[in-house]
C-alpha cells in the first residue's frame, strides 16, 4: 500500500477533471472549509466532516427534473462528466449507502440515480479530524479511502471503480502493512459514545417514554430556520414547482424541503395534521430514531453532527437526545 502527500493528491484530483466533476474539501476565501472544485481553494483534507450536506453532490438544493414544451417532454440528459467526490467520513459513507437505498427503493429516483451513476466516492479517515481527533476508517463502504497516518495519506481501493483509479495517481511511498494495522486498531478503539447515546434515545422513543411537554419545550427554541433538514445528509425531502420561460417552455424543478415547516404537511383545506411546531420537532427526531427503525430496521441518523453545528438555537439531534436521556433516561 502506498501513502501520498497532500501535494501528490492535489495533482491527482486536478488530473481527474477532464473525466470527472471533481468535488474535494477546499478552504474557501473566508476560511470556510467546504466541498468545491480543486480550483476553488487549497485542498484541505484534514478537519473532519465538511459542513455541507455531503449528499448534495448527488441531490442538489434545486435542480430541473423535467422540461416541457408544446410538443415534447424531456428529462435531464446524462451528466457530461460523472461525479468524483472526496471527503466523506465513515458516517457519511454509511449515510450515502442509506440514501442510495432510499432513492432506489420502490419508485427509483432517476434524477438522483443519474448523478450517482459512474460516480466515485472517496472517504477520508485516520489522524486528520478536527482538533487532532482521529476519524473512523470507513473500510469497504466507499470506492476509495485516504487514511491519514498523521503526515501522509494511505490510499485504499475497495471496488472496481476504486481500483481503476490507482494507476492514475503518481508518486507515493510504499508503507509497511503494520502502518495500516496500527491505524485500524486505533479506529476500532475510537469511542462509540454517540452511537450508544442515539441507540438509547431511540429505545426511549420506541417505548414512548418521552412526553409531549418535552417536545413543547424543545420546540419553543426552534426558529424554523430549516437548517437541520437542509444540512442533514440523510434528509431527502423535496418540493416541486414549475417555471415558465419567455419561450413558453416549462421547467419542473425540485427544491429541498423541510419537515419543520407548516406547509410541508398542510392539506389543501389549510388544515394541518402537523400544524404545531412541537409536533414537527417531535417528528424530526422520532422519524430518524423510531419510525425509520420500523421501516428500514435501523436508526437513520448517522451522527455526523451537522444539524448540531448549524442549529442557531442548540437543538440539533445530539443536543436533543442528550437532553432527552438526561430527563427520561432512567425511566
Amino acid at each position, binding site marked *: 500500500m502506498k501513502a501520498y502527500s497532500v501535494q501528490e493528491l492535489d495533482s491527482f484530483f486536478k488530473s481527474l477533471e477532464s473525466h470527472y*466533476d471533481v468535488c474535494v474539501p477546499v478552504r*474557501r*476565501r*473566508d*476560511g*470556510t*472549509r*467546504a466541498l*468545491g*472544485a480543486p480550483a*476553488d481553494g487549497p485542498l484541505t483534507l484534514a478537519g473532519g466532516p465538511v*459542513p*455541507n450536506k455531503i449528499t*448534495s453532490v448527488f441531490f*442538489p*438544493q*434545486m*435542480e430541473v427534473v423535467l422540461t416541457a414544451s408544446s410538443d415534447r417532454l424531456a428529462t435531464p440528459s446524462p451528466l457530461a462528466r460523472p461525479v468524483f467526490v472526496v471527503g466523506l467520513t465513515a458516517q457519511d459513507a454509511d449515510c450515502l449507502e442509506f440514501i442510495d437505498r432510499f432513492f432506489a427503493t420502490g419508485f427509483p429516483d432517476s434524477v438522483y440515480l443519474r448523478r450517482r451513476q459512474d460516480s466515485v466516492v472517496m472517504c477520508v479517515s485516520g489522524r486528520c479530524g478536527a482538533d487532532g481527533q482521529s476519524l473512523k476508517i470507513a473500510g469497504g463502504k466507499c470506492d476509495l479511502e485516504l487514511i491519514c497516518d498523521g503526515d501522509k495519506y494511505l490510499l485504499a481501493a475497495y471496488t472496481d471503480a476504486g481500483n481503476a483509479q490507482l494507476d492514475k495517481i503518481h508518486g507515493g511511498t510504499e508503507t509497511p502493512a503494520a502502518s495500516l494495522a496500527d491505524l485500524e486498531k486505533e479506529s476500532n478503539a475510537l469511542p462509540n459514545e454517540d452511537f450508544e447515546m442515539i441507540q438509547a434515545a431511540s429505545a426511549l422513543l420506541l417505548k414512548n417514554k418521552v412526553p409531549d411537554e418535552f417536545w413543547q419545550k424543545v420546540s*419553543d*427554541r426552534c*426558529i*424554523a*430556520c*430549516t*437548517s437541520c433538514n*437542509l*444540512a442533514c445528509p440523510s434528509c431527502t425531502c423535496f*418540493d416541486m*414547482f414549475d*417555471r*415558465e*420561460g*419567455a419561450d413558453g417552455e416549462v421547467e419542473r424543478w425540485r*427544491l*429541498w*424541503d*423541510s419537515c419543520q*415547516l*407548516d*406547509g410541508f404537511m398542510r392539506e389543501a383545506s*389549510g388544515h394541518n395534521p402537523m400544524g404545531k411546531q412541537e409536533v414537527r420537532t417531535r417528528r424530526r427526531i422520532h422519524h430518524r430514531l423510531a419510525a425509520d427503525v420500523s421501516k428500514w430496521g435501523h436508526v437513520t441518523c448517522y451522527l455526523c453532527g451537522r444539524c448540531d*453545528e*448549524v*442549529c*442557531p*438555537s*442548540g437543538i440539533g439531534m445530539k443536543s436533543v437526545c442528550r437532553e432527552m436521556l438526561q430527563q427520561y433516561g432512567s425511566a
Partner: protein
Amino acid sequence: MKTVLTTCPYCGTGCCFYLVVADDGRLAGVEPSREHPVAAGRMCVKGWNAFHFVNHPDRLTQPLIRKNGKLEPASWDEALDLIVSKLGSIQAEHGNDAAAFFASAKMTNEENYLMMKLARAVFKTNNIDHCARLCHSSTVVGLAGTFGSGAMTNSISCVEEADCILVTGSNTTEQHPLIGSRIIRNVIENGAKLIVADNRKIRLAAFADLHIRWKNGTDVAFLNGIMNVIIAEGLEDKEFVATRTENYEELKKVVAGYPPEKAAEICGITAQEIIDTARMFAGAHKAMIIYSMGITQHTHGVDNVKSCANLVMLTGNLGRPGTGVNPLRGQNNVQGACDVGALANVYTGYQSVTDAAARAKFEKAWGVENLPGNVGLTITTAINAAADGKLKALYVAGENPMMSDPDQNHVRKALENLEFLVVQDIFPTPTSEFAHVVLPAASFAEKDGTFTSTERRVQRVRKAIEPVGQSRADWEIFCDLAKRAGYSGMQYGSASEIMEEIASVTPIYGGITFERVDEVGLQWPCRTKDDPGTPILHIGKFSRGLGLFSPAEYKPSAELPDSEYPFVLSTGRCYFHFHTGTMTRRSRTLNREERFPYVEISPEDAKELGIRDREQIHVGTRRGELQCMARVTDVAKKGVLFMPFHFDEAPANLLTINALDPVAKIPEYKVCAARIRRSS
C-alpha cells in the same frame, strides 16, 4: 458549479453565505459560511431561500416607457434620455425641488451614494430619502441627539455577553433570527435575564423572566416609570451619571411625574411589573436594550428612542461589552443607506446639508457649485407634497411606496398626481403600475458592492451571475444618467472606485476599502487605513462628548380606539416574508408558508365576535376596509389586531394612518383604530 461569497439581501443582521451557481449560469442554492463572525455557519429560512427569486420569470428584463397609457418595451437610450429631459423640463418650470428621489435600503452603499450624488450634484435638490424614514428615522434622530451617533452602540456578539436583555418592540427570532437565537442561547446556556416588553406573545416570551404586555404606544410612560423606580430606590449608576452625562436634573424632574402606579395605569399593566422590570434591569452588571419598529414607528418614536437611551445612561450600560442601546435595522443595507447620505438632511457620514462648510466640502469634492442648503422632502413628506400637487416628478429606485407607505389611498392619489414617475426595480410592483418609465435593475446576486449591517459592519456583495435580460446594476444606471445630464464627475470603472470616493468624503468610512472588507468586513467608525474598526461605540466618551439625558413626556398615539373602531391595529412583518413581498412572495418555500393575507386576533375577541380560525373577515379603519383571513392566536392580546404588510391582495397599508413623528417624520404604523366584522 461554482460558489460566490456574498451578504444576505434580507434583514440587517448581515449574515454572509455562498451563492451556488449552476453550470447554466443560474442560481441553484446557498451554502453557509462557517467562518463568518455573525453567521458562523448558520442561516435562517430566508437566508436558505435568498437565491430563489433571482431567476424568477417575473424579473424586469428591459426598460419600459408608458405610451398611450400602456408600458411598452423601449431601449435604454430612449428611456434614460426621456428621464433626463423630463426631469430637466419639470425642474425648469417648477423649480429644482419639484423633483424627488427615493433611494433604497436594498441597494448597495455605492448605489445609494450615487443616487444621493445624482440628486444633489446633478439635479440640485436635497429631496433624497429612503425607507429608513419608515423604520428607524426616529433612531437616527433620537440616538444622534442623546449620544451623538445614531446607530447600534454594540455588536451582535454582545448579545451573548449580556446579563440582562430588555427586548422591546422587536420580534427578534422572526425578524433577526440569528440575533434572536443568540438571545435564546444566552438565556438557556448562561442564565441571562430576559425582559420582553411587547404585547404580542412572541417566541421570546416563552423564555422571558418578565413578559410585559403593555398597551401599544405607552412606551414612554413605561420607560419613565422604570426610571422613576430606579431613582427612587437609588439603583442608578451614580458615577456614570456624574461623569459621562448631562441634563440629569431635568430627567429626574420629568420621571418624577411617573410613579409606578401612574405609569402602570397608562400602560395597562401592574405597578409591580414596572418595579420588577426596574430592579431586574438596574440590578444587572451588563444590561442591554434591543429594540426595533415597536419603539420607532410611532408619532412619538423619537421620544421612545430617547427614553431607551435615558434608561441605559441612567444605569451606566454603555461603552462596555454586553450593554448598550441596540436598535436592530430591518433591511440588509438600511444602515448603509443612511451612512452614505440617502437622507433629506445629511450628506455621507451625517454631515448636515445646512452646514455651509459641509456644502463647500462636497462642492469641492464633486466639482459643482451651489449645492442646495435647505433640508429636503422625506419619503413621507414627499408623498404628501405629491398629493398636494407640489411635487411633480419622482424617481423611485428599489422602493414600493404603494405597499410600504401609510394610507394607500393617499399614496395612490400622490402617484396619480405626478407628472412623471420613474420606477427602477427588479420586479414589477404596485408602484410601477403608475410609472411613466420603468428601468430593470440587477439583483444583489448580479453586482458588486457593499452593504452595512445593523452592527455597522461594512461587508462585500459580490457578483455571482450576469444580470438577467438587459437589466443593469443600479450604480451603472445612475452613472449613465449623470453623463446624459451633462455631469462628468460620476464615471467609475468599478464599485470599488465608488467606495474610494465615499471614504474620501466620509470620516467614519475613511478607512474602508474593498480590499480591507474582503473577508469579514469592518465596523465603522473606521477612520484611517490602519483603523481596525469599532465594535463598541462610546467607550470612555460619547460621540458628542457627554451623553445628553433627553426626557420626554408621555403622549398618546394619534388615533386611539373608540366605540366605532374599538380595536388597536398594529402592522409589521411575518417570519417568512419581507417587506412588500416582491422577493419572498416569488420564493417558492417562503410563499408556500404564508400564502394568504391574515390578521391576528385574540381567542377572546374571536369568541366574542363568533370568528373562527382561518375564516375570512373584514378589517376596516377610517382609511379603508379589506378582507383577509383571521388567525385566532394567543400571540394577540385582547383588543389588539396585528397584520403583516406583505400582501398586495389585502394591503395592510390601506388601513394605516398617515400620522408622523413631528421630528423624524416616521409614520405611526403600530397604532391606529380599527374594527372587524365577519365576511359572511
